[in-house]
């Protein structure tokens, strides 16, 4: 199955998750996602998702001057963002459990 289809559904949650420990700027977040194993995530998808989460009021931003290159805009979770992360995380876990059970029952587990 095409992972990009799956990614679309969970990218919000993934972005919120990588921001839980530490704030990050766009490219940094992208790198963290890739390092975590989401190789196929598109650059534009991550940047677009960040804008949408920000517009939804789940993230705050601040600009940090950089010695080399342009200033960087950092994204951080706010209270609403943490809340959303907790709720979406729960939904995801229960969904994943359901899927696991489904796959195990049918004997299709890898």
């Amino acid at each position: 199955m095409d992972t990009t289809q799956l990614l679309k559904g969970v990218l919000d949650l993934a972005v919120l998750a990588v921001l839980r420990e530490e704030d990050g700027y766009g490219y940094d977040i992208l790198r963290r996602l890739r390092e975590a194993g989401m190789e196929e995530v598109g650059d534009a998808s991550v940047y677009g998702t960040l804008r949408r989460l920000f517009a939804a009021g789940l993230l705050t931003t601040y600009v940090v001057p950089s010695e080399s290159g342009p200033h960087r805009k950092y994204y951080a979770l706010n209270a609403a963002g943490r809340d959303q992360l907790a709720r979406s995380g729960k939904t995801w876990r229960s969904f994943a459990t359901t899927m696991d059970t489904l796959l195990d029952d049918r004997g299709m587990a890898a």
Partner: protein
Amino acid sequence: MTVTGQEIVDYVDRVRAALADLPPAVRDELTEDLPEHLAEVAAETDGTLVDRLGEPEAYAAELRAAAGAEGNPGRTSLNRRLTAGRARAAVQLERLDVQLGPLLGQPSVSVFLRPLRPAWWLLRGWLAALLLSALFGEPSGLLPRLDGSVLAGLFLLAGAVLASLWLGRRSAGFRGWPRRLLRLGTGALLLFAFAALVNVDQHASSDYFRGYEGVPVGNRYDSIQDVFVYDEQGRLVRNARLFDQNGVPIRLGWPTCVDGSGVVPPPRNVYPYCPEQAPFAPPSPSTPPPAPTGSTSPTTPAPTGSATAVPGPTDSAGTTTPTPAPTR
């Protein structure tokens, strides 16, 4: 690093062009991080940005989808197609921009043109002053006028140039309708400039000096075609030569009649060119009182002596044998 700053600028421009149907604020927000992002990508990659990220249009589509930003829902499909077509045209134009750049010794034509912008602002101010002057019904020329006054026109010119410079510094930040208005105005000015250029060129390439309103001499004598000198007795002086106070020959008019051989003679400094077109009949010796209307009253009809006002050699044959009736 093989990716140049220009490539980043081009990529950003193309992404922005592909998002042209979004409200400007949304588009700015979406592409705000893009230059920084591309710089990071460029620092890590050997290939071009397109190799690494795909075509800018695809990037824009992904960005739009992920951000959940829809185009203006009120737009019809025709409008959408128009927008898409405009975006494509913009991309083509940018390619051409880069391709033609080397001809000018620059990476792109826009790099070449950018430093010339203040010159355009000056020119724009001057054109605007000319246009205002023309709208007030002043004769068209190269200097604006107000109520026929060149001085007032110069004030207008200075004001228009200053306003244009101010606008030039501010207009980069224009969005929405002020920007559209500016473009409309620029188009109108360019049209007017073309018309004015053609007009001035017509005047400049013709022999008359009607176009040079700034030069007051010449105007009064434009309509003069030939000069007829009459002596005290009202007789036409032939082959008169005219000089100014410095002894410089005065040239007026041009020959319009054919001479004996059937060709129009070249202009010489002797008047009249065409004696037979004299406005007043010469006094004929047989009829004593044929007073030529408007000329000095010839009380003595007898032809005595030749014209004295002529410093050049007088043509005796011309003065003693009066030509017959005037031909006009």
